C-alpha cells in the first residue's frame, strides 16, 4: 500500500459542488425571491381583475363603476376583501366539515400552482448581480405544458367537492354541472395545445417562446398565432369554459342556481373560490400569451424588459375575457355541452390533423 494512494474515504468521494455557504448562494436567494414575487403578483393581479371587471363592465354598460373608494375607485378590491374578511364564516350543519373546508383550498392551491411553470420573461442575471442567468419562472420543468394541464384538471376537484359537501341541492347540481363542463372542455383545451406542440417540437414553455423570436419578412413577428389561428380560437374558447366564465358560467348562474357550487360558502372560503377563478383566468391567458402571442418577445424594448411585453399581451387577453363576459348572453347547459362535444372537439381534432400534415409536408 503506497503512501500516495488515496485510500481514505474522503478522498474517494467527489467533492461537494461549491465550498461556499449554500444558504447564502445568490442564485438560491434570487429563486426564493422569485417565488415570493410571483405569489404576490398573482394576488395583486386577482385584486386588479376585481377592479377592472367592475370598471369595464361599467363602461360597457355606459356607467362609471367604482369611483368613490380611493382615487378613481382603485381601492375597491381592497374594500371588497375587507368586507369579505369581516363576514361571518358559515357552515351548514349537515355539511361534511372536512371536505367543506378542503374544497376551496384545493381550488386555490391548484390555481396558484399552475402558474408556477409559466415563464414571464427572458432568462436574466439581474444586471450582473447573479453569477449566472436564471429563467424567470418558479419551477424548471421540461414537461411544462403537461404540468399545467395536469394541475388544471386537479382544480376540478375543488368545485365538485364543494358542490357535494355543502349538502344542498343547488350546490350539488351546480358542482356536478360545472365539473362536467370542465372535463368536457378539457379535451379541446388539450388538443389545441397539441397543435402548438407539434409545431414547436418541445414541451417546455420557455423553448416554445424562444422559437417565436424573429420576424417573417422583417415585419410580421413569428408568433404561433399566425400559424395556428384556429388553434388559438379553440384554446381561448376552451379556456373560457375551463375557468367557468361567461358565456359558459351556467353553473354560477345567478338566476337559475342561486350561486351554484359556492352557494353555501361565505367570507374567506368564498374569497378563495373567487381568487381561484381569477387566477385561473390569469394562468390561461398567460399560457395563451406564451404559446400563441410570443410571450416576452416584442419590438422596441431591450431583451431584458421583455416581461413588460408579456404584461401587455396578458392584459390584452384579460381584457378580452372581460369584454366577452359582459357582452355575450349565457349559454344554456345543454347548448354548452353540445357546443363542447359536437363543435369544438371536432374543430380541435381537425386543427391537429391539418397542423400535423403541414409539419410533415413543409418539414417544420
Amino acid at each position, binding site marked *: 500500500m503506497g503512501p500516495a494512494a488515496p485510500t481514505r474515504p474522503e478522498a474517494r468521494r467527489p467533492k461537494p459542488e461549491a465550498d461556499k455557504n449554500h444558504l447564502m448562494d445568490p442564485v438560491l436567494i434570487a429563486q426564493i425571491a422569485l417565488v415570493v414575487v410571483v405569489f404576490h403578483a398573482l394576488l395583486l393581479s386577482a385584486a386588479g381583475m376585481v377592479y377592472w371587471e367592475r370598471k369595464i363592465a361599467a363602461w360597457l354598460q355606459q356607467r362609471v363603476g367604482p369611483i368613490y373608494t380611493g382615487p378613481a375607485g382603485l381601492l375597491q378590491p381592497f374594500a371588497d376583501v375587507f368586507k369579505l374578511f369581516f363576514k361571518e364564516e358559515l357552515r351548514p350543519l349537515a355539511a*361534511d366539515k*372536512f*371536505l367543506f373546508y*378542503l374544497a376551496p383550498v384545493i381550488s386555490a392551491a391548484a390555481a396558484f400552482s399552475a402558474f408556477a411553470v409559466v415563464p414571464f420573461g427572458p432568462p436574466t442575471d439581474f444586471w450582473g448581480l447573479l453569477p449566472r442567468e436564471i429563467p424567470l419562472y418558479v419551477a424548471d*420543468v*421540461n*414537461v411544462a405544458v*403537461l*404540468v399545467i*394541464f*395536469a*394541475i388544471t*384538471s*386537479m382544480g*376540478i*376537484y375543488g368545485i*365538485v*367537492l364543494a358542490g*357535494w359537501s355543502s349538502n344542498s341541492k343547488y350546490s*350539488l347540481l351546480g358542482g*356536478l354541472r360545472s*365539473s*362536467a363542463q370542465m*372535463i368536457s372542455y378539457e379535451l379541446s383545451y388539450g388538443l389545441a395545445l397539441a397543435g402548438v406542440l407539434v409545431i414547436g417540437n418541445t*414541451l417546455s414553455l420557455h423553448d416554445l417562446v424562444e422559437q417565436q423570436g424573429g420576424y417573417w419578412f422583417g415585419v410580421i413577428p413569428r408568433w404561433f398565432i399566425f400559424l395556428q389561428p384556429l388553434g388559438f380560437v379553440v384554446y381561448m374558447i376552451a379556456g373560457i369554459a375551463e375557468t367557468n366564465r361567461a358565456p359558459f358560467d351556467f353553473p354560477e348562474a345567478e338566476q337559475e342556481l342561486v350561486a351554484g357550487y359556492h352557494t353555501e360558502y361565505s367570507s374567506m372560503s368564498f374569497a378563495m373560490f373567487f381568487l381561484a377563478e381569477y387566477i385561473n383566468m390569469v394562468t390561461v391567458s398567460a399560457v395563451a400569451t406564451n404559446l400563441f402571442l410570443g410571450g416576452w418577445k416584442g419590438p422596441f424594448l431591450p431583451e431584458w424588459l421583455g416581461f413588460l411585453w408579456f404584461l401587455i399581451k396578458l392584459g390584452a387577453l384579460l381584457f378580452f375575457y372581460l369584454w366577452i363576459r359582459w357582452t355575450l348572453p349565457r349559454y344554456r347547459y345543454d347548448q354548452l355541452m353540445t357546443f363542447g362535444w359536437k363543435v369544438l372537439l371536432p374543430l380541435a381534432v381537425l386543427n391537429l390533423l391539418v397542423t400535423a400534415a403541414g409539419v410533415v409536408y413543409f418539414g417544420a
Partner: protein
Amino acid sequence: MALDTVLFYAFAGITVLAALFVVVQRNPVYSVVLLIASFGGLAGLYVLLDAPFTAVTQIIVYAGAIMVLFLFTVMLLNVPREDASEFDRAHPLNRPGARRFGAVLVVLFLIEAVWAVWHVSGRETAALRATDPGSVASVREIGKVLFTDYAFAFEVTSLLILAAMVGAVVLARHRAE
C-alpha cells in the same frame, strides 16, 4: 440522509397510508379523495424514477379523469356508508379463523418486506442505475418507441376506448319503460 431517500420515504408513506385508508374506512367519498392523494404520491415516485411524463400522465388520466368519474358515480348514486364488519354476518372476516389467518399472513409479509429492503440497502452496487439526462426519460423517446414498436397496440387501444365508451353509454342509460 440524502434528499432522494427522504423524498422516497415521504412519497411512499403517503401512497401506502392513503391506500390503506381507502380500504379501511367506510365513507365512499373519503375513499375516492384518499385514492387521489395516493395517486399524487405515486406521481411523486414516478418523478423520482426519472419518468416525468408518466408522472404527469398519472395525474391527468388517473387522478384527473378516472377519479372524477368515480366521484360522479358516488355522488349520483348517493352511496351510503358501509356497515362495520362486526355487524354483517356474511362478511368474509366473520368466517371461522379468518382474522387469525389473515394476521399470520400480514406478519409473514411484513417480515419478508423488511428483510428484502434491509438485505439490500447496505450494498452500494444494488442502487438504482443512474440515468444520463434525457436518455430514458424524454417524451420524445417515448413517442418514438410508442409509434413504431408499439404502433399496433396503440391503434388497438383506440378501438378499446371506443368500445368502452359505447358500452358505458349503453349500460348506464335509462331504459325507456
